[in-house]
């Protein structure tokens, strides 16, 4: 057996190593301690620190000879009450904060004024529109970046080697378990930490490592442009994100996959909330990164809850976590239970892959830096759900048909549902987010209707490439226009940043299902599958979705890169509606795009038998499914292609040539109303919010403030004060008159005697 398989642990080990070196060695001992030399503002900051006899910070730092985050440098400077610093800040910022030139000036003022670093803080906060990072990462931070890239590159090479090894040796394709260690074993119950390698794993590994590699490479430029201070930290989080995803992909059992599952949640939490200082921007309908991260984690937990219960059912029924052992041990388990279990497992997928009704976290997750969005959407988080279903597909087969039906219909509905929302958004990244949700819907349809995981995974692969490209491209756009995500402030960028625009266009075509592009093969196959299995409702849904996808993607394209006056009828370039100057991104931005463009265009041929594509065979080991053979033989394809071309044409007409009036749909009140609903994402967020606020919190308040405080404590305190009151009463009996005492003595004696006598004589 190839050492690529037996030593598979190398792949997760690499990012782990990168993470540890980064967080334990390089960041604390080199990066942080050299931050001051980072750049002018920081230097000035440190300088100012001495200048104002930085009480806390200086003493603090000397105290334990370490210099914390640059943030720490600001500590000492607020010796004047922070509040008037605040006021002064507002004065300084007043008026000209929107002009970039103001920032260095504001900073300079800041260093002069006492308490000015609160001001610096405020300047930073105010800077979000437009975004003007100051400072640049230290050399050590960069080294962290290089290290991460290097290790991820090695991991990528390893996975490539694995893929090749598997391709050459079909025996391996059907799966090998690679034991690592036993986590716990109690009374015969084994909780294994083992890896499992088959062709599915190999594909996923390649996708994950490849995308991660490119994204990390790209992130150098991006983070430098958005949050240079977090440079090292960002790469650390990226490494742990890759690690958790790899664990998830490699796991041979429900225990490890659940671990990876949760860890993915953790890393997404950290990365989405990476720009922790940012505030919410209600005007743009954007939450604060912190809120977005919280939402992502909690919503995922809802899915995980179902997932966990599913696992519990299977584990308690079979006594094992291992995917490959479960079917054997299922024995005479009743079908209903298994079906329920699998549907519950699918709940997990719904959460991670942001399917309706747990899709709400994904658009908000856009608050993370764009590379993170690329990772989450292309390779990591959302792919996990699809992967889970694919991995447990045999169990889905064993289960009643309802399980897969649920999968398919959830997917189908989500696809069209998300696509419809995407129609009206004006935020670049949000449109892409909804398109992801919709595409994932496709994948679940593929898994649900076909009796094989081929189509779903195929689409997962192609989508990974072009969606990564789309996101990185949008990131490039944002860098160019200073982090403004509002398409209304863009337009005609194609001529201004062609190196970003060109690959972006390719990806757009690919996702729209333009013939011979990757997306075309994978998507049309799924649509065809629905028809073949006689799921005409799903067929309609998916077909409609294809049209919508094409439309909103090209709407995005035209609003961003094209527009009136562009070449080819507004397809290329046009008038620019923004205020800030467009900056040309450097190669670290466009090189990954170019690289990604290749698979986005050509990956499809792996599935096209006419050119010898054998993806399905490779992934499932089954012979090809008909629709897979040759798209052009089946009439269905015509409809698919037609739908997408129609969408493209409509978008071109409305936004490129502008021959179709823009308000063609919203001119009538019905359309307007519908548009409003779409704009508000069907009000689902509001519904959830209301539920949490009034039901969950309400009940909790009752429990905490009524039951605890009033009832239980009431009883307790009541008992206490009762005893005291009793005592107060009793002490009155002590009248101080000796004759009462005497009376008590004799009275007591007589009473006792009487009682005693009565008991003795009438008691028997």
């Amino acid at each position, binding site marked *: 057996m190839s050492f690529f398989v037996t030593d598979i642990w190398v792949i997760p080990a690499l990012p782990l190593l990168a993470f540890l070196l980064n967080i334990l060695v390089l960041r604390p001992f080199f990066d942080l301690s050299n931050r001051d030399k980072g750049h002018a503002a920081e230097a000035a900051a440190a300088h100012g620190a001495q200048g104002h006899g930085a009480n806390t910070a200086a003493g603090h730092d000397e105290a334990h000879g370490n210099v914390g985050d640059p943030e720490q440098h600001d500590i000492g400077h607020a010796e004047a009450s922070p509040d008037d610093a605040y006021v002064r800040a507002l004065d300084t910022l007043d008026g000209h904060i929107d002009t970039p030139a103001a920032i260095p000036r504001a900073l300079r003022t800041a260093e002069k004024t006492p308490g000015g670093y609160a001001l610096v803080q405020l300047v930073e906060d105010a800077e979000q529109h437009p975004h003007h990072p100051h400072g640049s990462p230290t050399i050590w931070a960069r080294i962290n970046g290089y290290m991460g890239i290097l290790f991820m590159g090695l991991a990528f090479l390893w996975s490539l080697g694995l893929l090749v090894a598997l391709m050459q040796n079909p025996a391996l394709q059907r799966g090998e378990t690679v034991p690592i260690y036993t986590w716990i074993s109690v009374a015969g119950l084994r909780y294994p930490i083992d890896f499992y390698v088959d062709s599915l794993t190999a594909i996923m590994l390649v996708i994950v490592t490849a995308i991660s590699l490119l994204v990390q490479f790209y992130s150098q430029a991006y983070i430098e442009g958005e949050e240079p201070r977090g440079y090292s930290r960002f790469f650390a989080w990226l490494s742990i994100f890759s690690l958790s995803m790899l664990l998830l992909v490699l796991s041979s059992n429900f225990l490890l996959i659940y671990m990876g599952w949760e860890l993915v949640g953790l890393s997404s939490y950290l990365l989405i909330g990476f720009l922790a200082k940012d505030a919410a921007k209600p005007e743009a309908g954007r939450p604060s990164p912190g809120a977005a991260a919280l939402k992502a984690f909690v919503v995922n937990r809802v899915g995980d809850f179902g997932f966990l219960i599913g696992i519990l059912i299977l584990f308690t029924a079979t006594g094992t976590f291992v995917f490959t052992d479960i079917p054997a041990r299922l024995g005479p388990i009743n079908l209903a239970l298994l079906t329920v279990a699998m549907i519950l497992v699918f709940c997990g997928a719904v959460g991670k892959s942001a399917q309706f009704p747990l899709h709400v976290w994904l658009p908000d997750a856009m608050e993370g830096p764009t590379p993170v969005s690329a990772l989450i959407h292309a390779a990591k988080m959302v792919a996990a759900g699809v992967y889970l279903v694919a991995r447990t597909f045999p169990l889905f087969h064993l289960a009643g048909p309802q399980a897969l039906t649920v999968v398919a219909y959830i997917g189908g509905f989500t696809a069209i549902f998300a696509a419809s929302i995407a129609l009206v958004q004006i935020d670049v990244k949000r449109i892409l987010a909804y398109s992801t949700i919709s595409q994932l819907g496709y994948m679940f349809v593929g898994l649900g209707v076909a009796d094989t995981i081929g189509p779903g995974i195929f689409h997962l692969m192609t989508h990974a490439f072009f969606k990564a490209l789309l996101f990185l491209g949008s990131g490039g756009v944002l860098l160019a226009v200073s982090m403004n995500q509002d398409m209304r402030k863009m337009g005609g960028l194609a001529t201004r940043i062609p190196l970003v625009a060109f690959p972006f266009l390719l990806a757009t075509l690919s996702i729209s299902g333009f013939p011979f592009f990757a997306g075309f093969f994978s998507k049309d196959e799924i649509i065809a599958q629905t028809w073949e299995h006689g799921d005409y409702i799903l067929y309609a849904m998916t077909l409609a979705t294809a049209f919508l996808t094409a439309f909103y993607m090209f709407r995005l394209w035209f609003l961003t890169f094209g527009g009136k006056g562009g070449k080819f009828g507004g397809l290329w370039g046009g008038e620019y509606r923004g205020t800030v100057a467009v900056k040309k991104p450097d190669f670290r931005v466009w090189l990954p795009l170019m690289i990604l463009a290749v698979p986005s265009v050509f990956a499809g041929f792996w599935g096209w038998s006419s050119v010898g594509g054998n993806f399905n065979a490779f992934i499932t080991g089954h012979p090809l499914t008909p629709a897979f053979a040759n798209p052009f033989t089946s009439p269905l394809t015509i409809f698919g292609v037609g739908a997408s071309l129609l969408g493209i044409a409509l978008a071109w007409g409305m936004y490129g040539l502008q021959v179709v009036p823009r308000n063609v749909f919203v001119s009538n009140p019905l359309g307007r109303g519908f548009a409003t609903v779409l704009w508000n994402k069907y009000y689902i967020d509001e519904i959830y919010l209301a539920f949490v606020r009034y039901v969950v919190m309400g009940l909790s308040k009752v429990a905490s403030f009524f039951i605890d405080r009033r009832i239980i404590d009431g009883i307790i305190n009541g008992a206490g004060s009762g005893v005291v009151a009793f005592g107060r009463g009793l*002490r009155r*009996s*002590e*009248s*101080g*008159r*000796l*004759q009462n005492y*005497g009376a008590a003595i*004799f009275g007591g004696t007589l009473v006792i005697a009487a009682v005693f006598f009565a008991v003795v004589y009438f008691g028997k």
Partner: protein
Amino acid sequence: MLLSLNSFLVLGALLFCIGLFGALSKRNAVSVLMGIEIMLNAVNITLVAFSSAFQKSAHGARLTGQIFAVFIITVAAAEASVALATIIAVYRRRNSVDVTDINLMKW
């Protein structure tokens, strides 16, 4: 005619109650003390009555009761002296021996 044992016992009981009543009702400490003495004497009567009853019974000629009574009388005398001394002490302090006034200390 000679009285039965019971009549003496009844007398003793009555006397005891009378003494008790006196002890609990009189306001003057000395009268209280006298009441107590009456109670003690009631006990004496009881004891002597029993003793003399036993004289004629199987228990033989033992004068335990009478001896007890004698002791009680003696001790009662001592008791009285102690009590009177204390009463005088109280009288010195507050010119009154009214037991109902003596309630500096209560609850």
